[in-house]
């Protein structure tokens, strides 16, 4: 495309098959204890597949 460059290789729709296993880290256990951010959390299944 000349006018659009998409940064992602996938979207939530395509990456959500079989999701919701609940095995990932609770967000407040990572670094923040006073605010909430979920987008910086890692999917446990993706992590496992990378190994």
């Amino acid at each position, binding site marked *: 495309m000349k006018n659009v460059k998409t940064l992602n290789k996938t979207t939530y729709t395509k990456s959500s098959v079989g999701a919701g296993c609940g095995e990932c880290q609770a967000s*407040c256990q*990572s670094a923040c204890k006073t605010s909430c*951010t979920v*987008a910086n959390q890692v999917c446990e299944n993706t992590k496992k597949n990378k190994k």
Partner: protein
Amino acid sequence: MVHLFQKNDFNIALDSASGAVHLLSDIAYDLLAEITPPMPQICPQKLLSRLAPVYGQEKVNEAYNELYELFLDKQLFSEDIPVQDSFFKTKTIKALCLHISHDCNLRCRYCFADCGEFHRTRSLMTGEVGRRALDFLIEHSGKIKNLEVDFFGGEPLLNFDVVREITIYGRELEKKHNKTIRFTMTTNGTLLNDEVITFLNEHMYNIVLSIDGTPETNDALRFYADGSGCYHDILPKYKALVAGRGNKSYYVRGTFTRETMSFTDDVLHLADCGFEHISIEPVVLPNDHPLSLRQEDLPRIFAEYDRLAEAIIKRTRQGRPFNFFHFMVDLDAGPCVYKRVKGCGSGCEYVAVTPEGDVYPCHQFVEHTECKLGNIFEDELRKDLRDRFSECNICNVEECRTCWAKYFCGGGCPANNYKYSEGISRPYKIACELQRKRVECALYIKAALAE
């Protein structure tokens, strides 16, 4: 819903529901600013008339067709993915914030935990309570294999013997029940020594090391009861701990306040000290507290986030990258939609346990006795309260449903909402504005580094 914004030379579009992030030409940006879904296959005449004199008809049509292709591929104006309601009704508990010590040897000026006391008397968790807390976690964990226990306080290392006892007990439970318990700790670092560091590096899956930045920033906010700052005590200990940590996770983590809003300097100082994983977070305090962040502070904070984003881009290009927790976004392998909808899971899958064994929705609710869910020595937790927390997700909160950043923040912090807004499901507006700004910065960094 599409969020469009410009930063330096970049035209950026985020398709909220799919998470697709697009960098646009000027023509595509001008077009998208005017388009309302559903997109017709052919560029509407009024758009063509407006933009053709600027860019030329052929180029406008070409850009429109590319946008239309994305629309067909559900990467523009896509619909929210439906999630099953039953997922949020589960009462499985997978993570504990274990208040191993309601005592602290520091007197940080912004401490939400009342310098460790949580508005009660100072107390330490016993081994008996700690072991029972782990049994309680196993009993409530259902089929979840990966469990988490964060040693929190106050300062957890004031009770290191019990930390060690509970951790060793947890290792036995893992084998017995075929579970993995990921122990983590949040510490102020003052009591670290070689023995403690060795133990923590062996057993802690993640460690959060509290420090606010430069000596001046840190010691103005984080000091002992005699008023002396802790920076020079903790820095060498943090360096020793990180040096011995291998690939295991850690964060140096600080807080910025109304008096320390030049937090880019603090982040860069920590990076210059050799730390690669850094989090500096906005303080959350009542509006009348001298350190609280207020609506009128937002332009200054936004400018600071912009400055930090530029610094991260520059250092990454120089081959000196570091992670800033609140700018971290993985556009391809982040959490699933369920996680994004559910948020932190407080009161449901994540709870806090006090030295007395009382259970609260999270560590920030511990001072609010009206929110007590029960006790680890009792059979039942309060169902009415847990139901209310389970309903606290971005599908149910009006302000979240219409917010373009909802899949990044997961609905924000229910504790902040409870304390500073109008209930756990009414977003704390300052936090929302900060979150949206951070998402823009994070996407801008991705855009700049994609070149």
